[in-house]
């Protein structure tokens, strides 16, 4: 599953940052995963545990902050909440929506020792 490739990318970012900051071990990793992004958090946790074994981030705590989805509704001319792709505007029922937030997948910060 693609969460494995994503977990590997997280590890690469985290290891690189930890080394550049003089850290020996990564104790915790904070990710920001949008509600409309390509990732299922539970699958990512599973893959993260697998890929970090034996690395600087072995047994690191993974904290996932979920950001809500929003979209610009063209008929309403305003930003509305969007729970998932394929939903209609909760105000007017239109599908003429442009996603404005919720697709992010970001490494926010790490705790190193």
């Amino acid at each position, binding site marked *: *599953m693609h969460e494995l490739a*994503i977990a590997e990318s997280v590890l690469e*970012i985290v290891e*690189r940052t930890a080394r550049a900051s003089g850290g020996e071990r990564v104790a915790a990793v904070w*990710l920001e995963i949008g509600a409309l992004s390509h990732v299922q958090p539970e699958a990512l946790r599973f893959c993260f545990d697998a890929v970090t074994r034996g690395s600087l981030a072995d047994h690191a705590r993974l904290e996932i902050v979920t950001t809500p989805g929003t979209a610009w509704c063209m008929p309403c001319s305003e930003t509305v909440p969007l729970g998932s792709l394929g939903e209609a505007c909760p105000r007017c029922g239109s599908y003429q929506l442009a996603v404005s937030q919720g697709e992010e997948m970001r490494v*926010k910060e*790490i*705790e*190193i*020792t």
Partner: protein
Amino acid sequence: MCTTCGCNDANALIEGKAPASRAADDSASHEHWHQHADGTWHSHVHGGGSAHRAGAGYVPRALAAAHAPGTAASRIVQIEEDILAKNGAIAAYNRGYFADHGIFALNLVSSPGSGKTTLLEKTISAWGRRTPIAVIEGDQQTSRDADRVRAAGADAVQINTGKGCHLDAQMVCHALTQLAPADDSLLLIENVGNLVCPSAFDLGEAHKVVILSVTEGEDKPLKYPDMFHAAGLLVINKIDLLPYVEFSVETASSYARRVRPGLEVLALSAQTGAGFEQWLAWLERGVRTARARREADVDQLRRRIAELETTLAQRGVAAPPG
């Protein structure tokens, strides 16, 4: 691991070989990615010249510790980096390569069995000599699809991902060094059959073309929204089977437009050729646009050279020969 530069290209094989062994075998150029001390990504082409291309727009920001949360021994380091930034940088490189060469590149995605490879075979034979046409094939195993496509008359390179479920930009970058598509050509990338994972991975293509066959059910756009949301075109295939299945092209299109407003939809049969003219016309428009953009870029460079030569002449400096 690459013996030339130490990069790790995981387990993907291109034409049956890992990228490292290809670089050792021959003097063909080998692409790999380095991250410099300032955080920017660059690719280096070995053997085939000294081309040095930057991954556009990607600079990771690793900021110094903001505060110490608890024990004095640990500290927080802020990162704020997009998880797929590296793939994005390589995809941007690929996109720049396509633009420089006037190549119209498409990423064909679908479930397994939708008819992608048959569509490719029929497209290659119908395309004829309009422009050169090349294919990058992606599958977990075998070279069966690349063999079929070569038999139809196109140059092809097969990527085997092993256990991987999608192509990524680095695999395509490696494949391009071997394929070396002609200028102003059509490049079709057939992704691994999978309606979920490839949606997250930009390859540098002009569009993702989602292929949905009528035997798969009209509700798939709602059940697999990520892929249809990322699509630049929806091709509904196997319309010759419409009399035998419960599928409405109208309904499937309207579902797809819920997750991707304004999505263009073409309905055709790769088997019978019904609806193929619109597909070829869509491809032709894309190829023309890519060529026109390359020609405009070249014109702009020539004008700039002429301006600079005029400036030199005004300063009494002779223009360089040639």
